[in-house]
């Protein structure tokens, strides 16, 4: 059910057509003008003459089944359904009359016979009971022993899902849930089974929800007009929310706008914001349900210190912890030099917090040794797009995909990692857009209900650049380039050089086939489809960036888009799907060691002068250390102290033993986090962090959209993250005196041309803003590079394929690649502490049946996975999702040790690790490694020791 104050207009807006006419009609004698194509129901609602309804809702196409929304229309026979009747000029509609009231009462009484008044757990929100009351129905004359729905259902309540339950007794079979699953989510997991009184909502093949194809996005619950599908948290609270706070999800880079409903100072429900431009009123299993980690018992709420990492932690006051950390940093700098310390900003923290940490490092530490977790995910995006197009960001807004005719997805699995955007993409694909998938693995998008890829380029891990060059070869040699577009908008010399390079037969699909493993004809077909599409759009993920040629591949993608004229308007573009909620923002905020906010190099004297004037301090003009460089410097003894906010380097960075050796060598490691993470094992100071529910600020999503994060509950530790950074800075002797994050944003705007027009007041007024937002674009920029590229002329780069040095051998004959699963998020610190473990309680190694058979491995066996960097043990899943020679795993559980086996290979330009290619051997073993068994025994949140979900938890998790 919707938020109580939501005004549901009944049917969706008419299709947005250019030059759409307005139609004027009369409703109950009141003239109203609406876009042509609108329904009478919507027109009536817009005129505040709402027509009663049950099966209609404005998020779904009209259905016309409930017969409650009947109206009278002058000159028409009978009582047309207002949801299925289009407006017409001069139409005269009556929404209320005695005849209509009688008809509606009759229909409603039939519904009430199956759904007795007062039976919903939240009756005040039940649309049926509300309507029945309005029509004076207290009970049904038709109710009897055989009308109750449970007569026909032995088990009316399905409570298998940890977050919601389905009660068939309360269902009125309006099909809103089924249609939401189809139209909003695109999973098609629900259907109506049976006929007449025996008809009921069924998940998959009449399975419990938890075992079905249901992905727990919650769209069905929100669409349900009664309490048949309802959040367990709402049932548990049994009271209406006292307030609702609009905020932004803290999971993936889609950045869904959510509304937190709060009862008794706790979140009782999270619902997608209907006005959210990024998510268009939708959410996923993580954003909607998995927020319980914020109040999990594992939260650290008191500052801790210890002299040595072998000591026990001591609980101290904030002042003592901050002063200890500041004292240690000062001591280290005095002994080893200014550049012996540094800091890491987090893509899970707000823009304002990130900006403060980099300011602290540059201004208070006096060094540029600051980096961010984007280093290990999308740093090649910044490099590649800046060099080719002129800006380190994606080019589109998400709704642009509704105008795409051809969609190419490279190295991403949107249904798993960016599910809300995937639903938008699938909607366009169901309308007929074509799909090209470039991925070593058969991601779910390759073939799912009503969606099937035209081409799946199933390349070998590590051969992206060979594939993009082969695609470009076909485009150039078959005359499919848009030369007029290129001549007008791109550098001629670089274009000619690039054309000559890709036209070389060495880059042909036929030449590349033995390298990539992709049949030449598949490449040719995909290239033709992409180039000939009227609007062709590329979406890509970490399968592009996390390679030794990550930056080269991003440039190759931009080359292809420029050559085919697919940049600078809706429906086209190059869109990186950012992994974390604020990866874009953390990069924008100057978290990289070589540049200030807005991607301006520290060596630029005029830029540095602006910061020096504002910050009243001398700033260094040399790039600082990147994360991998910090580890090297720590191991060689020249780097001794780190301040890490909201990042778990020991789990997320490659070659764990190398990372932990580096961390162990530090004299002062300060961690600021909400949980004791893996990195905290090497820390000397633990500063409790605050979750996204506990603070104000902004996040910037993958489409450059800046959205507000609003405080829903008070910080459990007493301070928001930005306040902690400020205290540390003050203790170090560099004053920071902000009283609200809006003041930090004002400073960002003053120092960053692309944010010049951004303020909290404007975001609150507009809902969200896509940067650049300045004098030229006061309300933001949904589509970039319109008319011309940010850098002026687009620049083509020659992108020669250079094989990775990480190759298979007789000792390591398989290639391991990694990815995410829908229910878990990154290193799992949040989602492992929610009931999402019901879907994914351990990481598994996917292996092809041929490779499994050759090793005598059976489904569910433990296998040892050994690489040149290390080894671990995983349970195996035999599947044809991977090809022979390729194995795959997720990395959500620390006890899996996925990064024990990844290597330090990295992107040539940015040092982004090559997570996606690791040569391994897989052998059957009897049990997990000894360290894994010890860990499972020691960690309560791990899969083997996890507690049973509290089904009625008011925070939706445990």
């Amino acid at each position, binding site marked *: 059910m919707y938020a109580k104050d939501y005004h549901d207009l009944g049917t969706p807006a008419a299709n947005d057509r250019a030059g759409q006419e307005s139609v004027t009609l009369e409703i109950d004698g009141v003239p109203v003008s609406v876009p042509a194509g609108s329904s009478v129901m919507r027109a009536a609602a817009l005129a505040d003459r709402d027509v009663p309804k049950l099966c209609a809702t404005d998020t779904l196409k009209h259905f016309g089944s409930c017969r409650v929304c009947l109206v009278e229309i002058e000159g028409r026979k009978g009582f047309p359904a207002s949801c299925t009747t289009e407006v017409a000029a001069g139409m005269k509609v009556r929404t209320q009359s005695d005849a209509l009231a009688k008809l509606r009462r009759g229909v409603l009484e039939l519904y009430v016979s199956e759904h007795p008044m007062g039976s919903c757990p939240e009756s005040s929100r039940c649309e049926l009971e509300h309507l029945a009351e309005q029509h004076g129905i207290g009970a049904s004359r038709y109710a009897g022993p055989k009308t109750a729905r449970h007569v026909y259902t032995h088990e009316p309540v399905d409570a298998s899902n940890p977050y919601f339950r389905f009660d068939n007794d309360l269902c009125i079979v309006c099909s809103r849930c089924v249609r939401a699953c189809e139209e909003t989510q695109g999973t098609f997991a629900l259907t109506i089974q049976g006929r007449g009184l025996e008809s009921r909502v069924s998940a998959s093949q009449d399975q419990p929800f938890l075992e079905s194809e249901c992905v727990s996005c919650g769209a069905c619950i929100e669409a349900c007009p009664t309490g048949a599908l309802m959040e367990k948290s709402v049932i548990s609270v049994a009271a209406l929310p006292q307030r609702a706070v609009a905020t932004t999800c803290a999971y993936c880079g889609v950045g869904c706008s959510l509304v937190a409903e709060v009862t008794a100072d706790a979140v009782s429900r999270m619902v997608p914001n209907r006005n959210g431009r990024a998510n268009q009123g939708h959410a996923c299993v993580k954003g909607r349900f998995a927020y319980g980690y914020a109040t999990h018992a594992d939260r650290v709420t008191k500052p801790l210190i210890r002299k040595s990492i072998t000591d026990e932690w001591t609980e101290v006051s904030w002042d003592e912890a901050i002063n200890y950390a500041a004292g240690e940093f000062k001591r280290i700098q005095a002994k080893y030099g200014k550049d012996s310390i540094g800091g890491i900003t987090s893509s899970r923290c707000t823009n304002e917090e990130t900006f403060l940490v980099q300011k602290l490092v540059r201004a208070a530490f006096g060094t540029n040794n600051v980096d961010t977790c984007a280093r290990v995910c999308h740093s090649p995006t910044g490099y590649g797009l800046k060099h080719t197009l002129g800006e380190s960001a994606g080019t589109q807004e998400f709704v642009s995909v509704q105008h795409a005719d051809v969609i190419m997805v490279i190295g991403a699995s949107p249904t798993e990692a960016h599910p809300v955007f995937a639903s938008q993409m699938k909607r366009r694909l169901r309308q007929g857009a074509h799909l090209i998938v470039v991925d070593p693995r058969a991601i779910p998008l390759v073939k799912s209900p009503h969606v099937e890829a035209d081409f799946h380029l199933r390349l070998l891990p590590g051969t992206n650049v060979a594939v993009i060059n082969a695609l470009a070869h076909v485009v150039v040699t078959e005359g499919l380039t848009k030369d007029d577009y290129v001549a007008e908008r791109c550098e001629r010399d670089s274009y000619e050089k690039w054309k000559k390079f890709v036209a070389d037969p060495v880059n042909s699909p036929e030449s590349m086939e033995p390298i990539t493993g992709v049949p030449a004809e598949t490449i040719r077909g995909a290239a033709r489809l992409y180039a000939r599409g009227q609007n062709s759009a590329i979406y890509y993920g970490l399968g592009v960036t996390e390679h030794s040629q990550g930056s080269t591949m991003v440039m190759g993608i931009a080359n292809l888009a420029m050559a085919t004229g697919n940049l600078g308007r809706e429906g086209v573009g190059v869109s990186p799907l950012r992994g974390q909620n604020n990866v874009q923002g953390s990069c924008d905020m100057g978290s990289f060691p070589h540049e200030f906010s807005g991607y301006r190099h520290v060596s630029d004297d005029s830029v540095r002068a602006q910061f020096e004037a504002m910050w009243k301090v001398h700033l260094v003009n040399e790039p600082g250390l*990147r994360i991998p460089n910090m580890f090297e410097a720590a191991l060689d003894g020249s780097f001794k102290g780190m301040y890490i906010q909201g990042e778990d380097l020991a789990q997320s960075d490659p070659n764990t033993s190398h990372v932990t050796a580096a961390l162990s060598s530090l004299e002062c490691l300060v961690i600021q986090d909400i949980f004791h993470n893996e990195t905290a094992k090497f820390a000397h100071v633990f500063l409790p962090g605050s979750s996204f529910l506990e603070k104000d600020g902004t996040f910037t999503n993958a489409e450059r959209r800046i959205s507000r994060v609003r405080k829903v509950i008070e910080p459990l530790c007493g301070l928001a993250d930005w306040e902690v950074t400020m205290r540390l800075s003050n203790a170090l002797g560099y004053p920071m005196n902000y009283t609200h994050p809006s003041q930090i944003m004002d400073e960002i705007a003053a120092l960053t041309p692309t944010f010049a027009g951004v303020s909290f007041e404007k975001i609150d007024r507009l809902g969200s803003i896509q940067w650049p937002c300045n004098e030229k674009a006061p309300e933001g920029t949904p589509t970039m590079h319109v008319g011309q590229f940010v850098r002026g002329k687009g620049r083509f780069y020659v992108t020669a394929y250079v094989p990775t040095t990480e190759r298979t051998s007789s000792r390591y004959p398989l290639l391991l690649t990694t990815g995410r699963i829908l229910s878990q998020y990154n290193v799992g610190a949040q989602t492992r502490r929610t009931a999402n473990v019901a879907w994914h309680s351990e990481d598994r190694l996917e292996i092809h049946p041929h490779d499994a058979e050759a090793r005598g491995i059976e489904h569910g066996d433990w296998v040892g996975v050994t690489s040149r960097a290390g080894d671990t043990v995983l349970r195996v899943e035999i599947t044809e999702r991977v090809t022979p020679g390729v194995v795959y795993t997720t990395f959500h559980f620390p006890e899996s040790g996925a990064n024990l086996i990844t290597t330090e290979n990295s992107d040539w330009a940015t*040092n982004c690790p090559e997570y996606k290619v690791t040569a391994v051997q897989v052998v059957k073993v009897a049990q997990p490694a000894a360290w894994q068994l010890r860990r499972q025994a020691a960690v309560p949140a791990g899969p083997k020791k996890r507690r049973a979900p509290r089904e009625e938890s008011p925070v939706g998790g445990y």
Partner: protein
Amino acid sequence: MANDIAAFFDAEAGPAAADGVRNHISRFWEARMRREIIAHLQKGGAGLVPTARDAVARLTPPA
């Protein structure tokens, strides 16, 4: 890593490849890393490909 950078610029910049590598290292490598690779070259530069070697030779030593 200098060799990987050189591999990109060899293809992209041809005769200007060493300049490309030098600029890249100057803009993205921290001073102690640049000192290290300059010292490595001064000791013979074992393992460096020609473009990387030329580029490092042109690096301005950090202050």
